[in-house]
């Protein structure tokens, strides 16, 4: 067996154990002290994130964050990635990624009710490898989520060459439950018994988590990291688990993910301040001759660990038998603070829980990257000659084009929750009751983070928050996923630490708690050794009361006034326009001014509450023109925009249309409501400009009366819808 423990870690183990560990013990430490399970490189930084809030029942540290949404109802949320497995087996990797995050939500005793996915690939227009990854990742997510019956309600897809050999596959899952029924990954009562439930334990995924913690290039043992999805078994386990749980039989629950049984056992013992005594020979295995270490670190899918009061073991077993699920009673909880592992009663490992559960911190040097010096200020690209053509190219670029090809492969309606469906708006909206709704948006802005990770990370949070506000909700919490290259590279580590500081600053200013997240390192190109762009991905969760408050980006009727909230500045660095049309990755990205952002958010929130607004969209990637064309397409109705009315210091039409300045919304309203909006805007000291009207079936731009752009909404829609299918072959 290959271990990735360092010399210092080995020393720490020997010191802690006061003897040399045997191979089985080493395997346990190796799994638990992997980056993936221990967060040894990021723990200190992560502690900067504010995690408390009035709705937070449980923040980071468990399988899922738990939020109170009133009337005894709770929402649970978690985010996971499966980047490395997906890079070698996009179908199975993505599918088992969904399986993993579903287990986390199930692990706190809640029913998964929605999935969102955030995907990043290389340039699908140029690379057949990226097309292959994209196609199979989407199919993997679809086949898994659809079969289990959890709707995939939203997400994002971005193409950028920095992900060519290291795609990013992030999945968020939401769960719904009752406050009284929360169960935790804890074994806190000596005498309780441990039941391992679900699929047989085999050799698959052995070294999966240390695999994710090493560079993809050195993954010599790739094959064993392949995990095979089995959504049918997951669905059955899910129903059985919720059934056992609803009957009150379950005292602790833990999903088996990275690091397998070893990490699951250590975690429940650590959280429960107890010890465990288990016998591996009782486990139902798939193949003969597996060593104790292999059984402990196997990452076979579809398994859960139950902690059950001894007197209920009959009842719980009966539920598993009824659903034809295999299970093994593998041991019991003790008071010893030790994890004792046996095979046929003979002790094969005996490790102190406190030692094993806390990997020593790994400190890395940090240095501002060189590339930031060279690309800071750039020459303005030449003004494109053909406005129509340029605008259409940008808004139908693969990054901005409709993602229908993706989300139509997902069952987004199952469960009867989905009010705003994928494609309807920047955030999706779920019905919890007929007057309580959840909004969620998942976003990443690596092109901004690449230029300025702190600003970029803040803008990413702001964008996700604005998306939930644009559908009428109030943000209540976020989860983050931090995806970077090799942390031992000081430049990579600097971008990580800047990103976390950016997120933390936003959370503090806006009093928005972070209730969970994930860190993924070693995301780099095996051929060039280049790290991906720094990619924090943020999901913001919002709460919305009253069905009438739900807004979407859909333009509704002729004669509505179109208002731009906020200021459009000359901020093109890291924009989709620069990237796609001019192939420029440099420039200074938009800055986020917290006061202005708060003003804009409150303005829209207040206006929605008093019923002034009709359609709303946030202005982000692709700038103002992308927002307006999406609004037209969604409503299948035209608009006339008068450029001279836009409040801005931009001199050129391309800057004006494509600037990605933060803190902006496009809203439409009945002209009679304008005075009301103006008053609210004044309260919050936010500029608003009336920039046009909803009318006809064309999107038309004029500048002081001269028409500079005009296109049929039908044509815009078709161009946008056809883009990805035409690249993907059908």
């Amino acid at each position, binding site marked *: 067996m290959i271990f990735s423990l360092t010399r210092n870690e080995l020393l720490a183990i020997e010191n802690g154990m006061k003897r040399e560990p045997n191979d089985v013990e080493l395997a346990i430490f190796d799994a638990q002290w992997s980056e993936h399970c221990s967060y040894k490189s990021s723990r200190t930084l992560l502690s900067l994130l504010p995690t408390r809030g009035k709705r937070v029942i449980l923040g980071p540290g468990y399988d899922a964050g738990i939020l109170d949404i009133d009337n005894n109802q709770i929402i649970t949320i978690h985010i996971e990635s499966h980047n490395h497995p997906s890079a070698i087996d996009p179908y199975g990797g993505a599918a088992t990624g969904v399986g993993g995050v579903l287990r986390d939500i199930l692990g706190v005793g809640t029913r998964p009710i929605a999935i969102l996915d955030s995907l990043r690939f290389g340039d699908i227009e140029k690379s057949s490898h990226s097309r292959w990854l994209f196609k199979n990742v989407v199919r993997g997510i679809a086949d898994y989520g659809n079969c289990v019956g959890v709707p995939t309600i939203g997400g994002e897809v971005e193409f950028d060459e920095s992900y060519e050999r290291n795609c990013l596959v992030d999945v968020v899952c939401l769960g719904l439950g009752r406050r009284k029924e929360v169960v935790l990954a804890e074994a806190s009562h000596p005498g309780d018994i441990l039941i391992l439930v679900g699929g047989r334990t085999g050799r698959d995924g052995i070294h999966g988590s240390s695999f994710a913690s090493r560079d993809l290039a050195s993954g010599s043992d790739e094959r064993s990291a392949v995990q095979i999805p089995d959504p049918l078994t997951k669905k059955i386990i899910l129903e059985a688990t919720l059934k056992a749980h609803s009957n009150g039989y379950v005292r602790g629950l833990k999903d088996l993910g990275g690091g397998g049984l070893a990490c699951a056992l250590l975690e429940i013992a650590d959280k429960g301040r107890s010890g465990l005594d288990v016998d591996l020979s009782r486990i139902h295995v798939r193949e003969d001759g597996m060593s104790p270490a292999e059984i402990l670190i196997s990452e076979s899918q579809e398994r859960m660990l139950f902690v059950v009061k001894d007197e209920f073991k009959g009842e719980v077993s009966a539920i598993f038998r009824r659903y034809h699920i295999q299970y093994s009673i593998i041991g019991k909880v003790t008071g010893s603070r030790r994890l004792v592992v046996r095979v046929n009663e003979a002790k094969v490992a005996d490790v102190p829980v406190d030692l094993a559960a806390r990997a020593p911190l790994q400190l890395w040097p940090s240095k501002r990257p060189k590339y930031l010096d060279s690309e800071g200020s750039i020459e303005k690209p030449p003004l494109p000659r053909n406005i129509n053509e340029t605008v259409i190219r940008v808004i139908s670029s693969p990054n901005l084009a409709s993602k229908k090809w993706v989300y*139509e492969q997902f069952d987004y309606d*199952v469960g009867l929750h989905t009010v705003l469906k994928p494609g309807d708006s920047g955030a999706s909206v779920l019905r919890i009751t007929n007057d309580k709704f959840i909004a969620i948006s998942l976003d990443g802005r690596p092109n901004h983070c690449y230029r300025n990770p702190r600003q970029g990370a803040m803008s990413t949070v702001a964008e996700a928050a604005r998306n939930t506000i644009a559908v009428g909700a109030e943000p209540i919490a976020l989860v983050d996923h931090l995806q970077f290259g090799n942390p031992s590279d000081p430049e990579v580590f600097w971008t990580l630490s800047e990103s976390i500081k950016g997120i933390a600053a936003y959370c503090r200013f806006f009093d928005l708690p972070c209730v969970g997240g994930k860190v993924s390192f070693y995301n780099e190109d095996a051929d060039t050794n280049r790290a991906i762009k720094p990619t924090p991905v943020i999901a913001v969760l919002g709460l919305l009361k009253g069905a009438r408050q739900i807004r979407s980006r859909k333009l509704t009727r002729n004669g509505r006034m179109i208002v731009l909230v906020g200021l459009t500045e000359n901020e093109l660095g890291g924009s989709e326009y620069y990237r796609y049309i001019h192939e420029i990755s440099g420039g200074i990205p938009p800055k986020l001014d917290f006061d202005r952002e708060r003003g804009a958010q409150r303005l829209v929130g207040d206006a929605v509450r008093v019923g002034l607004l009709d359609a709303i969209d946030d202005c982000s990637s692709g700038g103002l023109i992308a927002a307006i064309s999406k609004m037209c397409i969604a409503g299948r109705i035209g608009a006339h925009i008068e450029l001279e009315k836009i409040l801005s210091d931009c001199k050129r039409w391309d800057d004006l249309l494509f600037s990605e300045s933060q803190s902006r919304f496009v809203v439409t309203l009945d002209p009679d409501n304008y005075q009301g909006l103006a008053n609210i805007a004044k309260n919050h000291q936010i500029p608003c400009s009336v920039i046009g009207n909803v009318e006809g079936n064309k999107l038309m731009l004029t500048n002081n009366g001269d028409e500079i752009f005009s296109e049929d909404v039908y044509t815009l829609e078709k161009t946008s819808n056809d883009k990805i299918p035409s690249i993907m072959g059908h």
Partner: protein
Amino acid sequence: MDKLKVAIVQFPGTNCDRDTYHILNDVLKADVQVIWHEDLRMDAFDSAVIPGGFSYGDNLRAGVIAAYSPALGQLRKAGEDGKPILGICNGFQILVESGLLPGALLRNSGLRFVCRWVNVRVEAGNSLFTKFSENGTILKMPIAHNEGRYYAEDDLLASLERNGQIIFKYVDEGGQPSEPSNPNGSVSNIAGVSNHDGNIVGLMPHPERASESLLSPFRTTHGLQIFTSMLRSVEVLLKR
């Protein structure tokens, strides 16, 4: 009079059972129960719905493994007794695989799972499941399936047409069963069929997802027509 009883049959992998229950129980206030397939005894029920999902993970072919469940024996008998039976999506696939409905359902011609709101035209109004819809009524409902391409050989197709067994077709906004409005390559745009006697119906679209205006992009509740018609038909049958 005793309220009529509806069974919702649940197989391993069924995933629309709770949704269908919600509409029948909470919205329509029917007397309805979700029954694990091994426990189904149709003596106790007047009607049954096989909801959507992925019974047995769609392994081998959608619906084929469930077709061998003892529940299908119960449903066959109930069908012979004239009790209304509705198969939705995977339920339709199970009814076809077990021979309770004619034809076959093949993999979508687009080779991908398709989730989309479509227009469905009622071809046989005033049937047990379409009592409240005239011929030609257009219902907005979503589909979500991988294997929904309805297939029947020419002879069978002709006899289905003759007997009025084609209940639903996919159509465009103008109500025509056009090529672009056919989401999966079904022969003659067929979205749902019945058995010879008309008391067993299967369809690929999901009426339970189209029964509450909040969840419909068009604020419609067209799916309710199918369920209310089914409930009403059972009442009529019971009175006889």
